[in-house]
């Protein structure tokens, strides 16, 4: 089963601390949503409110169109997968997975059958008679997933479920989670602070900071066309270049920066239309720098720059550059593997205009 989830103007305060500040969110049925942000951004609080473990100080939560704001966890069509898995240590895996069904009054034989089915889904059917302490971290995690899914929830809430796994296992589990979500069709709401994980599994990402939603959209949009400086910085390495709008018309805006004037198309401004005199921040991803002649479409030239350091990263060279026009600025750019990069070398800097995002300075 699956259901849409809506949060209307939810706030949560703990004494003087505001964990969640007027958050509204609409999740479609069957979506894989990732709440992404640094620790303390309110993502776990939001998840707890969805699961019913905390109630919002203000605002409402609806699941499948029904108001759930003050319904206890047991009565909600949600289940939570906890960060530490929270398996029952004294029960065999089949009893762990069948626990929710037992609470719903299902007979032993029937729930054992169903539990085995879900253990099969996560590839642990052969271990049904083991206890949790006999399993590895990744396996425990799968059991927790099977247990949460066994009661057929409309919404599955995942609280940093991959946090305790090593990198390789984490990547593997991400693929599995995504595949299982597609198969069962349940709405997944997943909390993480790892932006790569978020991009790997999410249909849409909610970027949160200081109790607010900074950005909400598909991974590619969040990465390529962020709508806040925080979101741009959190999703990956980015160069921020301050600038001022000199003039703006319906199609483009002339922006003056330390590295020269750039005529930006209006769609570079993801938040609001440019106004003359406005101070803005240009966001350029390191991989968007192009060498002259290599780019497609209209290009903005940012003058020349001196290489001050470089390191080989396998897929690319990561270089630190000092623009000749603005020696105070340091720019990080990725150069192709084949590029011969040497310190002190002078290279021309260019970026596809379509890759530049211009955001109002000083937050929203």
């Amino acid at each position, binding site marked *: 089963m699956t259901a849409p989830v809506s949060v209307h103007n939810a706030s949560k305060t703990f004494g003087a601390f505001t964990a969640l500040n007027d958050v509204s969110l609409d999740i479609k049925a069957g979506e894989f949503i990732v709440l992404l942000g640094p620790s303390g951004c309110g993502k776990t609080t939001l998840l707890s409110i969805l699961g019913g*473990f905390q109630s919002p100080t203000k605002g409402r939560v609806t699941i499948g169109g029904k108001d759930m704001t003050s319904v*206890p*966890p*047991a009565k909600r069509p949600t289940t939570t997968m906890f*960060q*530490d898995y*929270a398996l029952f*240590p*004294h029960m065999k895996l089949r009893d762990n997975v069948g626990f929710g069904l037992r*609470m719903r009054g299902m007979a032993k034989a029937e729930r054992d059958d169903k539990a085995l089915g879900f253990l099969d889904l996560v590839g642990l059917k052969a271990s049904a008679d083991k206890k949790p302490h006999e399993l590895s971290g990744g396996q425990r995690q799968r059991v927790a997933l099977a247990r949460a899914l066994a009661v057929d929830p409309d919404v599955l809430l995942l609280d940093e479920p991959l946090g305790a796994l090593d990198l390789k296992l984490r990547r593997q589990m991400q693929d599995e989670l995504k595949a299982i979500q597609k198969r069962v069709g349940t709405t997944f709401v997943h909390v993480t602070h790892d932006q790569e994980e978020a991009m790997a599994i999410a249909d849409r990402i909610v970027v949160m900071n200081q109790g607010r939603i900074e950005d909400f959209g598909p991974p590619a949009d969040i990465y390529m066309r962020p709508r806040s400086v925080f979101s741009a910085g959190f999703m990956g390495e980015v160069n921020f270049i301050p600038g001022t709008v000199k003039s703006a018309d319906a199609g483009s805006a002339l922006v003056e920066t330390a590295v020269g004037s750039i005529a930006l198309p209006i769609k570079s401004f993801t938040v609001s239309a440019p106004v003359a005199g406005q101070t803005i921040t240009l966001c350029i991803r390191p991989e968007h720098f192009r060498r002259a002649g290599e780019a497609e479409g209209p290009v903005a030239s940012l003058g020349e720059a001196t290489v001050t350091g470089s390191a080989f990263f396998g897929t690319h060279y990561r270089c630190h550059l000092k623009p000749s026009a603005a020696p105070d600025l340091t720019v990080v750019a990725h150069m192709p593997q084949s590029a011969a990069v040497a310190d002190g070398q002078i290279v021309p800097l260019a970026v596809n205009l379509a890759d530049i995002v211009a955001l109002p300075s000083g937050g929203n």
Partner: protein
Amino acid sequence: MRDTLTKVASYGYAGLIYGFIFLPVAVLVLFSFQDGRLPVPPFNGFSLQWYEAVFADRKLMAALANSFMVAIVSSVIACLLGFLAAYALARYKLPGSALQRGLLIAPMTVSYLIIALGLLTVLNTFGIKLSLWTVGIGHVVINLPLCFAIIFSSMGDHHINIERAARDLGANDFKVMALVTAPMLLPSILAAFFLSVTFSWDEFIIAFLLSRFDVTLPVEIWSLLRSGLNPKTNAIGSLVFLVSVAVLAVLELTLFGRTKKS
């Protein structure tokens, strides 16, 4: 040379300590096999006659059974109450929880004699007749703080999410406690139970002051001693010791062995 000396010294020291602790028990057990009327040196020879006498003594056997009953029933009650109190204090925000914890532990610091006298006064006031039940009540009073302390200390925060998960999957408060919390804490609950059993088993002052016609074993032994030293008291003492050792062995093998594994 120096190494050997240190080794000898440390072995000697360990030997002395263990001798100090166990020599009285060893002597007690040895003279329970005395072939003669007095449990004092010299050891005249090996005989099981005193054990025979113990098992033939109806009063002693009745006291033994009474002790078992009182120990088991009072320990079950002390564990149950201790578990419930620990659960409440560990999982809910209660008014003055530090004070309540202190009050629960407080009887540990009061001497058994005072507790027994207090209970005696209370029982008299309410006109309750002394019996094995009143001894049991006394033993619950002294063992409840112990059970509470052991179980409370094992209720870690890492259990909170597990209980939360159970609730999330549809369990009500009672089911969470009965199907998740108690089985999870079983090792410490059993440890509390067995310790409580051994304390109740050995306890004399409360049992003496709060019992009347039916008495527990330590009280019966005490009345035997009043008629002078007798290898029979050694024999019954050895049996009491054996039971305590057996309980400890069970505890060690089942619980501590298990916690090491997981």
